């Protein structure tokens, strides 16, 4: 089933994926165990004339066992998830590369700092739906929306963050492979929701410098 996962091109994608795999193996094993037992019981204990069911109201030891085992597994999963979650959300690595994305029906407005080198000022340089970043560089994205809630989703980076009107949320990623990756909106945002998408272009350092010189530097002068 997990072979359908899009190729992972971010520094933290493998951590999400390995949790995904771990939970997949645990749940698949549980599913098989319970289903096999159920089928076996249905065959073994199917109605036969003259037989009588076992008169039992339960077994406290068994019940304690099958309360404690899932509880223990879930606690371990929680702690493993907490670590990754903190890494993704709370321990944001510093970066000097930041862009702002303002979502609106039905476009991503992508802003790069203008001549003043700061985001959120009049001279910001705006692009429609195209995000250009260098590879192997921590990118900060300040996300907001101007009308309804959208969700900035880059499947290949395992990145998803809602863009909420009235507040700015900062997310981050570091791409590990140059390429062109699709950037759909993942939150229902109106009749144009489907097809609201952009592209993330991950360049190697050289190509990024070239792109920046052509598209940013010229406007920054």
């Amino acid at each position, binding site marked *: 089933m997990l072979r359908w996962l899009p190729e992972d091109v971010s520094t933290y994608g493998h951590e999400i994926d390995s*949790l995904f795999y771990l939970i997949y193996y645990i749940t698949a094993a549980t599913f098989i165990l319970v289903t096999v037992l159920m089928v076996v019981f249905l065959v073994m204990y199917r109605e036969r004339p003259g037989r009588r069911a076992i*008169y039992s109201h339960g077994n406290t030891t068994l019940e304690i066992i099958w309360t404690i085992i899932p509880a223990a597994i879930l606690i371990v*999963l929680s702690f493993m998830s907490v670590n990754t979650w903190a890494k993704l959300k709370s321990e944001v690595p510093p970066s000097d590369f930041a862009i702002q994305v303002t979502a609106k029906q039905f476009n991503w407005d992508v802003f790069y700092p203008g001549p003043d080198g700061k985001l959120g000022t009049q001279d910001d340089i705006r692009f429609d739906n195209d995000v250009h970043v260098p590879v192997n560089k921590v990118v900060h994205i300040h996300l907001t929306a101007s009308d309804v809630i959208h969700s900035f989703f880059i499947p290949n980076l395992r990145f998803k963050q809602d863009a909420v009107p009235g507040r700015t949320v900062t997310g981050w990623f570091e791409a590990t492979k140059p390429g062109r990756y699709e950037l759909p909106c993942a939150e229902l945002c109106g009749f144009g929701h489907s097809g609201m998408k952009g592209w993330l272009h991950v360049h190697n350092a050289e190509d990024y410098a070239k792109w920046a010189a052509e598209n940013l530097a010229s406007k920054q002068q």
Partner: protein
Amino acid sequence: MSQTVAAGATHAVHGHHEELGFWRTYIFSMDHKMIGRQFLFLGLFMLIIGGLLAMMVRWQLAWPETPVPGLSAIPEPYMYEGIIPPQTYNALFTMHATIMIFFVVMPIMVGCYGNFLIPLMIGTRDMAFPLLNMLSFWVGAVAGVIMLSSFFVVGGPAAAGWTGYATLSAKAAYTGVGMGQNLWIISLLVLGISSLMGSINYITTIVNMRAPGMTYFRMPLTVWSLFVTAILLLLALPVLTAALAMLLFDRTLGTSFFLPEGGGQPLLWQHMFWFFGHPEVYILVLPAMGVTSDLLSTFSRKPIFGYHAMAFSMIAIAFLSWIVWGHHMFISGMNPLLGTAFMMTTMVIAVPSAIKVFNWLGTLWGGNIRLTSPMLFALGFVSNFLIGGLSGIFMASTPVDIFIHDTYYIVAHFHYVVAGIIFALFAAVYYWFPKMFGRMMSEPLGKIHFALTYLFFNLTFFPMHFLGVGGHMRRIYNPTQYEFLQPLQDWNVFITISALLLGLSQVPFLINFIWSLFGGKKAERNPWQANTLEWSAPTPPPHGNFEVQPTVYRGPYEYSSPEVKEDWLPQDKPLAKGAAVRGH
């Protein structure tokens, strides 16, 4: 009159019943059984509508922007010669979910079976407040009419998703839906009144009107589940009502509860909606669990495994359901620390769910299992709930949820849980049909219905996990607009064909249901040889239910008890002195 009757309890049963006319018997009835049947017919009617809406959604996803066969007559701008435009598509999935949740599962599992079963199973003659009960149905029916009427107003019905997220839902300009969204809000407000009346009635009846000897821990788990559900309804719905009222004010009076330009908070809607919405999931699933527990025990001819654990796990689920709502909001921009806390509580709520599944297995173990239609559907519920429960662990893990949130993985998960309830719903219909209508349903048709439904349900919903893993977003109109979804499109076609066949698989049920209503074999009093009190009443039970006030001597699951020769021992059957000490 061989039964020992508790002194003073008979007068209620032998109360004088005057003959009621057509209107008072069938339309404005105050008899809990007729109200239960009314809820059943309302729910089944809405099930057909909700199902057809889903078929249209699936058509568009498999063969985007091609004409839906037979729908070319629907005028523009709702459809273009049979082609579904994006605006209509959004309305279709919004109304599909709204109808299925609020007008199918709730009316049938809570409205119908709550009404029909609670008085019969606890051994009383009716609900505590019959007039309130009648009003509960009719207010609910009015809510249904309001919801359906929104299909016929300018701009079409609501199109902001069943979750109605602000700000999309808070301004007509954002969706292009004006009146339709207002009617959606008003309908749910009205339905909330209906549910409140019902839940007050259920709680009062269960607390005060149990038959002599019917202690709390002798109640069937179906009654326990409805009791817990009623408490959840009573506490959760006011929050939804408040949120809906605020939304309506934002839309019509110019307030800004959820609109940031006036100082409001879009996330406030999500907090309020899910504070109601997560208990709501358990409002839907708990009765299904209760019914399944009863049926598994009855048809395994064996006491339920761990009765107390089953009752307490329902209470635990109900309690925990209040503190997990944030798991719907991990990527909403909510503080990540809150995400951690909600992940912990969500992992914890998986434990009582696991206990239930293991106890169901324990019930089957060592049984003498009768694979009747209701039993097959109950087993189908267990099997689907197992998948739905396990897939929930993925999204409980906050990092994994980053990827699968808002994808078809979620759609697969909640259909296994919520659409899986339909198996318990069918199990209940097949099981209690004889008591409700006095006739048996056809077993062969029931088994065909089960086999087809189980097969195509899984072929429809299981591959949605693959779509989700591939990153396929939910609620998109045309998946072929995305390059990365191209390899998955064949699955969309496969799912749609399965879904259409799942729809067709309901034909045997419709035939069986309607035919059995009029031509089914006459049902005897206790056709399944079950223990609970409803089977001690005549079939179908008259107004007032029991010929004599039943007295309860034991728990509901004394199957294959060594104390009697038969493999069942009804709750109200007196045994020779000193014998009736087993059970709860």
